[in-house]
C-alpha cells in the first residue's frame, strides 16, 4: 500500500514534468523559429521555413545587415537614455510626493491621492490627441518633452505603490531625526530613501519595462530620424523591408536580446513587482 502510494507519487511527478516540457516547447516555439530563420538567406526561408539551414541556405549576413538597417547602436542608445532618465525622474518625484502625501495628512492630500489613483483608469487614447496638439503648440515635440510626458504618465502608478509602502514605515525614526535637527530634504534622502530600497527597485523595473517597449507615445512625439527609439525603428524597418524575413527575423532577435538580458538580471524584482503591483 505504502509502496504503491510512493509509486503513484513519482508517476505524477513525471507526468507534471512531461506536461511542463511540452508546454514550455510551445511557448518557446516562436522564438526558436525566429532564431532558426535568422541564419537563412531569402531562398532558404522561402523553400524551407521550418527546417535547419543547410549549406546552400546558411548565412551569417543577416545580422550585420539588420544591425545597419536598424541603426542599432543609435536606436538602442536613444531607447536606453530615454528609459533611464524618465525612470529615474519618475522615481524621484513620485517617492517625494508619496512621502509628503502620507506624512502630512490633510483633506487636500487625500483628494490629491485619490486623483492620482483614479487617473490610472484613464486610457491613453483619451489624453493622446489634446496632448499632441498642446505639445506641438508649446514646442516640446522632442526627447526632453517625451521624458517629461513619461513623468506625467508614470507618477500615478508609482505614487500609489510608494504610498502603500510608506504607510507601513513607522514614523518614529523620522520624528527622532527631526528632533535632532534634520531638515526635510536631508530627512527624506538620508532616512526615508534607504528604507524604501526594495519598493524603489520594484517600481523602477515596472517602469523600465513599460517605457522601453512603448511605441505609441514616442511615435507621436519624436518620430524623426536621429531620435527614433528601438520600437520606432522596428516599425519603420518592417515598412521598408516587408516580406524580407531574413532581415526581419534577425532584427527581431536583436531587439529581443536586451530584454532577455534585463530579465535574467532582474528576474526576482520583476516577479516581485508584478505581485506587489497586482495587490495594489
Amino acid at each position, binding site marked *: 500500500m505504502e509502496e504503491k502510494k510512493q509509486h503513484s507519487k513519482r508517476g505524477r511527478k513525471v507526468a*507534471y*514534468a512531461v*506536461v*511542463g516540457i511540452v*508546454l*514550455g516547447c510551445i*511557448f*518557446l516555439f*516562436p*522564438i526558436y*523559429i*525566429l532564431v532558426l530563420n535568422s541564419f537563412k538567406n531569402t531562398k532558404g*526561408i522561402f523553400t524551407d521555413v*521550418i527546417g535547419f539551414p543547410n549549406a546552400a541556405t546558411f548565412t551569417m549576413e543577416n545580422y550585420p545587415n539588420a544591425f545597419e538597417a536598424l541603426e542599432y547602436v543609435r536606436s538602442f542608445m536613444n531607447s536606453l537614455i530615454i528609459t533611464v532618465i524618465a525612470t529615474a525622474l519618475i522615481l524621484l*518625484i513620485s517617492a*517625494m*510626493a508619496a512621502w509628503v502625501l502620507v506624512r502630512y495628512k490633510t483633506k487636500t492630500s487625500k483628494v490629491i491621492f485619490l*486623483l492620482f489613483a483614479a487617473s490610472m*483608469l*484613464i*486610457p491613453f*487614447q*483619451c*489624453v*493622446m*490627441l*489634446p*496632448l*499632441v*496638439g*498642446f505639445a*506641438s*503648440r508649446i514646442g516640446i515635440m522632442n526627447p526632453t518633452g517625451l521624458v*517629461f*510626458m513619461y*513623468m*506625467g*504618465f508614470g*507618477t*500615478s502608478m508609482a505614487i500609489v505603490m510608494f504610498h502603500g509602502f510608506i504607510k507601513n514605515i513607522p514614523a518614529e525614526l523620522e520624528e527622532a531625526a527631526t528632533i535632532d535637527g534634520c531638515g526635510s530634504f536631508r530627512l527624506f534622502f538620508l532616512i526615508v530613501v534607504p528604507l524604501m530600497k526594495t519598493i524603489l527597485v520594484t517600481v523602477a523595473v515596472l517602469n523600465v519595462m513599460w517605457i*522601453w*517597449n512603448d*511605441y*505609441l507615445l514616442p511615435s507621436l512625439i519624436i518620430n524623426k530620424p536621429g531620435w527614433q527609439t528601438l520600437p520606432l525603428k*522596428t*516599425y519603420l524597418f*518592417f515598412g521598408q523591408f516587408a516580406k524580407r*524575413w531574413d532581415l*526581419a527575423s534577425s532584427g*527581431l532577435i536583436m531587439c*529581443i536580446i536586451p*530584454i*532577455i538580458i534585463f*530579465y535574467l538580471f532582474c528576474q526576482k524584482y*520583476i*516577479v516581485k513587482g*508584478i*505581485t506587489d503591483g*497586482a*495587490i495594489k
Partner: protein
Amino acid sequence: MTPALFSFTLIVLIPMLIGFFYAFTDWNGIVGSDMEFVGFQNFVDIFTRDDSFLHALGFTALFSVCAVVLVNLVGFFLAMLVTQKFRGATLLRGVFFMPNLIGGLLLGFTWQFIFVSIFEAVSKATGLKIFSGWLADPQTGFIGLLILTVWQLSGYMMIVYIAQIQQIPESVKEAASIDGASGWQMLKSIILPLMMPAFTIGLFLSISNSFKMFDQNLALTQGGPYKSTEMLALNIYNSAFGANEFGFAQAKAIVFMIIVAAIGVTQLVITKRREVEM
C-alpha cells in the same frame, strides 16, 4: 510633491480637460486651424455616420471575452502546474513568463511571421487547408490575435496566481485530504474560493489589457483586411491620424474611456463581493 503634481497636471489632467472640449468641436488636428463648436454632433456621428466604431466595439468586446477567459484559464493552469514540486518547475516559470517582457510590437511582428510563413509551409506540407491564408480574413485574424494574447498574457496571470496559491496554508490542504477530499473536491471547495482575490486582479488586468490593446493589433493585422479586425484603440488612432478628424476621434476616446471604466468598476465590485476572508 510639487514636481509630481506639476507634470501630472500638465500631461494628464489638462489634456484630459481640453479633450472634453475638443470632443465637441470639428477640429482637424492642425494647430491654428479654425474649429467650430458642433455640440453633441460627434457623439451622434459615432452611432450614425460612421459604423467603424461600433464594429470595432463589437470586435473588441468579443475578443476581450474570449481572451479574458482563455488567458485566465491558461494562467491558472500554468500556476497550478509550476507550483507542484518537480524538477525544472522554476525554469518553466521563467519560460512561461518571458513573452510578457517583449513589447507588443515585436510580438505582433513575430506572430505575423508564424501565421503567414510557417502556417503556409505547414499547409503545403500536410495539405491541410486550415493552415492556409492566415490573417487574410477576419476569422483567422481574430484567432491570430487571440493566440498572440494568450501567449503573451497567460504568463503574467500565472505570476499573479502563483502568489495567491502560495498563500494558501498547507495545513488547510492537509486537513482536507485527511478528511478524504478528492483532487477535484479540493480544487473546487478549497483552492478556488481562496483564490478569489487573485481572480479579482487577474480579471481586472486581463480585461483592461485586452480592451486597450493597440501595439499587437497594429503589428499583427493593422486592423485589416478592410478594418475587419480593427480594435477600439486602433479605430480612434485611425480616425485621428488617418482621417484627420481629431474632434470626432476625441469623442470616440471619451466613449471608450466610459466603457473601459464602467466595465472595470463593475467587474471589481462583482468579484470583490465573492472574495472569502481568511
